[in-house]
């Protein structure tokens, strides 16, 4: 038995794998990137929007290849050169280049131009699905004609040339935008090449400008000026490197600090650092931490002055505790020492000096972050498989890191789903309870009634076995009822018919009809139209709140349970009928046990065995069906969350929902499988691995 359980658990691993594959496939069907689609529709896009888009793409790892990341094996030198070239060009000059490429037959292009054309073309396919540059060829060669054969049915030569030029200019804008996106997708591989371009002796000034601009596009926030909420040693290296670069610019403004002032400053620094550290590490309370942070900032602002900068810098680079460095960095940032910011972008007409400065900054950045960009060879092989969209998605799903939602406000998906689960789960549990509490008895009643159809009603004689007073009376009542009601299976037929009709009403139809009947209008409006709580629910007492909840939840729970209820009852009926025809029941009867005991003690437990497994079977239907019920009743649960995620194209939430639903079902199937084994001793644990 233990080996069966173990095997069953091991089998979950491929299943989990399968779930991730299906989720991934479903997500790949999503109609392009909503942001990118918006981009190509409107043509242009503000830098801010693109910035946000690139950030979000990096966050969800959508910039990676789908299944196999072979980018680590390529050399992106040419691409880097061309990309920098494109970024460095103005829109007009890029349009000129496109004109040259477009008007020259392809076999007469220079080698560089061929590579450029190839790159431009590859921009089309690199963006997800068909969201790339629309009609690249048509824009490059208008009307799809080969070069030189321009059809001028109505236009003069000049007009035609103007139109072609217009098209190529819009293509130039698109090429620029998409080059940026394309490079941002491959920032891991292009950044080293760009740095190499900057370092190389023979690189022209224009190309350097392009490279710097490309780096600016590809790398978000290259420098760290201060520590994050939870400072780490890795951060320290970056921060120190940043200020080491900034300090020399401002160093000559400061004289020597007086020793006593320096001592005082040092003392205050270590004092607050200790206090902050204690607050941050010592307590888990968020408010205490925030208060300590605020106190720290206050002290930095009030206690120190601009002249303390050398002391601070010494603290930062010296061998001091981490939190003292935190304070020093905050101070330096506050007073904007050395301009407070390392220049990482240059305009197109920048002077050689500025270019050199920015280039130096980027080299510094690269030195600090070299490990990220130059992984070791074994790591490259690992990344080949793992650093892909699928790999990252599997990791996110398996580790339950669902990220943030795609719609404003961008709250964490887990939080959103958590809230919805707390709405949905009670409804589901109530529905399941109702299903089992009503379905099984009615199924049993039907079956018993049907069974009697053949055998005829038994007389209600008291059995020979001694019984308690209560039980004797219950059983005699039961016998009387059975004689009156269940003669010739009338009850079975009626109840079955009712169940059958219930089974035939789709739950959402029932929901709408119930809303129409019992919620809308005047005289029968006894239930609320939707929601789960009244407006003033927060001010209610405990009992009133519960009653209010039940009042609101009654109809939704009813709709959720009706369909499965009827199904389960019919199933229970047939299971009971199966059991009732078996020999041991006849044996029990022939021993003279009362009908009640035969049914409740002998038949019922045996008929329950197949029913238990149905628990997991109804769950997917219920989770899916709850979409409609929750939308109709306006309940903010899992189903409606899923629907609104579909409507708002909120893919992270959607993926998380599909995955969580599948996991829930998987766990419940596992549970019932194990339960099945426990309750039915007849089940063998064959080598097949399945209980049969």
């Amino acid at each position, binding site marked *: 038995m233990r080996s069966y359980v173990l095997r069953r658990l091991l089998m979950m691993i491929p299943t989990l794998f399968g779930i991730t594959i299906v989720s991934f496939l479903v997500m790949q069907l999503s109609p392009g990137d909503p942001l990118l689609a918006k981009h190509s529709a409107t043509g242009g896009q503000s830098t801010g929007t693109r910035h946000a888009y690139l950030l979000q793409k990096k966050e969800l790892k959508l910039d990676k290849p789908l299944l196999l990341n072979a980018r680590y094996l390529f050399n992106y030198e040419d691409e880097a050169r061309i990309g920098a070239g494109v970024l460095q060009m103005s829109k007009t000059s890029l349009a000129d280049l496109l004109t040259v490429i477009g008007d020259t037959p392809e076999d007469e292009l220079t080698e560089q131009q061929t590579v450029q054309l190839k790159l431009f073309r590859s921009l089309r396919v690199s963006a997800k699905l068909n969201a790339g540059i629309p009609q690249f060829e048509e824009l490059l060669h208008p009307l799809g004609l080969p070069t030189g054969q321009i059809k001028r049915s109505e236009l003069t030569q000049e007009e035609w040339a103007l139109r072609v030029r217009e098209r190529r200019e819009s293509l130039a804008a698109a090429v620029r935008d998409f080059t940026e996106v394309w490079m941002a997708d491959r920032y891991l591989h292009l950044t080293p090449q760009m740095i190499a371009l900057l370092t190389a002796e023979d690189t022209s000034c224009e190309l350097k400008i392009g490279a710097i601009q490309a780096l600016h596009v590809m790398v978000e926030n290259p420098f760290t000026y201060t520590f994050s909420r939870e400072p780490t040693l890795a951060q320290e290296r970056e921060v120190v490197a940043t200020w080491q670069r900034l300090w020399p610019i401002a160093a000559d403004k400061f004289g020597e600090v007086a020793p006593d002032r320096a001592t005082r400053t040092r003392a205050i620094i270590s004092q607050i650092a200790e206090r902050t550290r204690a607050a941050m590490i010592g307590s888990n309370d968020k408010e205490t931490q925030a208060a300590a942070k605020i106190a720290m900032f206050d002290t930095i602002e009030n206690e120190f002055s601009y002249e303390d900068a050398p002391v601070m810098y010494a603290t930062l680079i010296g061998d001091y505790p981490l939190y003292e460095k935190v304070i020093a960095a905050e101070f330096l940032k506050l007073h904007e020492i050395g301009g407070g910011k390392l220049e990482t972008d240059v305009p197109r007409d920048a002077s050689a000096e500025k270019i050199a400065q920015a280039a130096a900054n980027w080299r510094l950045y690269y030195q600090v972050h070299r490990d990220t960009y130059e992984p070791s060879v074994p790591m490259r092989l690992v990344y080949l498989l793992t650093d892909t969209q699928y790999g990252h998605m599997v990791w996110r799903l398996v580790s339950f890191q669902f990220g943030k939602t795609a719609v404003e406000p961008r709250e964490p998906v887990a939080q959103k789903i958590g809230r919805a689960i707390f709405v949905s789960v009670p409804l589901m549990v109530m529905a399941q309870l109702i299903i089992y509490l009503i379905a099984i008895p009615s199924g049993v009643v039907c079956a018993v009634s049907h069974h009697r159809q053949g055998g005829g009603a038994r007389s209600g004689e008291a059995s020979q076995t001694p019984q308690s007073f209560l039980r004797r009376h219950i059983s005699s009542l039961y016998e009387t009822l059975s004689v009156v009601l269940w003669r010739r299976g009338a009850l079975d037929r009626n109840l079955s018919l009712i169940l059958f009709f219930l089974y035939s009403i789709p739950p*959402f*139809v029932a929901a709408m009809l119930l809303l*129409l009947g019992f919620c809308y209008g005047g005289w029968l409006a006894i239930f609320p139209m939707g929601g789960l709580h009244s407006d003033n629910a927060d001010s209610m007492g405990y009992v009133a709140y519960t009653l209010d909840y039940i009042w609101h939840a009654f109809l939704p729970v009813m709709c959720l349970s009706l369909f499965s209820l009827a199904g389960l009852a019919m199933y229970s009926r047939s299971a009971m009928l199966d059991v009732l025809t078996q020999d041991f029941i006849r044996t029990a009867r022939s021993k003279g046990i009362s009908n009640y005991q035969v049914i409740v003690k002998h038949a019922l437990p045996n008929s329950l065995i197949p029913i238990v497994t149905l628990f997991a079977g109804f769950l997917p239907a219920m989770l899916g069906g709850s*979409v409609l019920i929750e939308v109709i009743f306006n309940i903010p649960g899992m189903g409606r969350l899923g629907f609104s995620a579909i409507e708002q194209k909120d893919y992270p939430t959607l993926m998380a929902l599909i995955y969580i639903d599948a996991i829930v079902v998987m766990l419940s199937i596992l549970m019932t499988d194990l339960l099945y084994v426990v309750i039915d001793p007849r089940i063998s644990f064959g080598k097949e691995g399945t209980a049969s």
Partner: protein
Amino acid sequence: MSQPTEQPESADRVGPVGVPAESPLASEVGNGNCTAATIDSESYFDLVWRQFKKNTAAYVSLWLLISLFIVAIFCPLMASNQPFAFFDRNEAALAGGAFLARLRLSGVDEITFVIEPRLGHHIREAEDTLVVTVRPRNAKEEGEYELRRVISARIEATGRVSYQVRNKTLFDLLFHGQDEQTKVAVKLNSATAKGSLGRTIYPWGRWLFNPAEPVDLFFNMAMIAFVPCLFAAVTTAAVKGCKWGLFKRALAPGFILYIGTTILLSMLFCEPGNDIFQAVFGGRIKPDNRYGERTFTEEEARAGPRATGWYPPIRFGPVEQDVPMRFSPPLSRRSSERPNDQHIHFLGTDNVGRDVLVQMIYSTRISLTIGFIAVSIYASIGVVLGAIAGYFGGWTDILISRVIEVMLLFPAFFLILTLVAFIGPSIYITMVVIGLTQWPATARLVRGEVLKQRAMDYTAAARALGAGHMRVIFRHILPNAVSPVLVTVPFGVAGAITVEAGLSLLGYGVRPPTPTWGFLLNQSNGNYANWWLIVFPSLAMFFTVTVFNLIGSGLRDAMDPRLRR
């Protein structure tokens, strides 16, 4: 024990085709407690049918389903805004030129023809010549031109043209006459001709071939194909005599003939089919929809009490909008002033004024199509994959079983909703998505059944006789293993119809002009004051689902020997 089932037709059919020998079915047949001895052959399906007929509810449901199909096939006969026939005065004036020319050739001097001034004709009077300028709204340039040319040519030829208006001057009639017919007599030489100019057009017939939705084309073709098939059936019955046995034998080929004709017609008259025909034979086979834009009921309303069209009983089209009448409750009529336009919206209208009753009638087509196509897609996938998994076992089985298990984990409706929302709303997408997501249950069922059959002796015998794997699976095992799948089909159809309605309710099932029950529910916009948009589609869906469920349970009982008492 003798087994009076049909003997296997081919030698390689070793196994019991209909029923396994040890099953209680066989014993029942052999016992002679039924009329097996009198019937020449009692196949498995005869047996099931006999059992099925005993179940009154299921039997009635089967007939209800058939009538549902009849409604679906013949709904253009019940409801359409296009008249079967229409006496068209616009067309009359158009044809006038040709008519005049024909009369002149036959030597007729005087003709009398009717011009309806208010249908867009404009007649100008001149001193001694009659110039008739026809400007019908929907006419082509050529028609107008021709009439003028012919008349002027005639004037030149004879030089004697006069007109005569009965009782009134032409001018009076043109600008004051409201309801009277204007009659203009034109003398040519000395002869006189009588005859009303005009043409009867058949818009309904053209409209049949040009529906908005390809599904409609299929059903329209089914309606057209019904006529020859019925004729063939009646002829056969007349020639060979009306016998039950004959009917039973002819049922399956007749049905196949009917479906085949329908498919053939659909392929011929669909847009690509027409293009191919045009490429090969040089002419269109599909009638164009030249009257599709016209609103005949409007024209009739303006024409006054002289109705000249012959319409189906309900004069509303499935996609015909009437925005001023939006959200009208049941039994409301359009307006009381117009004598010709008194048609009642029996079940009210929706948010753009389309008639709910008509939409519900046409929805049966969409629902039945989605139900049956989706189920056939997933049943085929499920049967094939399940059979392969069950038959070959080993790694194939493990792989397919894993896939089945994984697919079963996802909440079906939510998965379908997501996929349909991603790919785009359309009934075809809905069908395919339902088909591609629902197959695992069938596959699991078939797999279990095939596992059972594989262990039986006849499979080994078939293998021993040298039959290939595919032959064993599809010719020997599957015929014995598909009956549980057949039982699930009616339930599956009901489920698919429900899923489609749910998707449409959320706005992701069909594209708007296509009428379905779920979309009607959607159009209530959550406003329960429009109760007719909720109650009637709900009832229709409840009816359909019940019918399918009853048939399903009847079939299950009939096929399950344990329940046969």
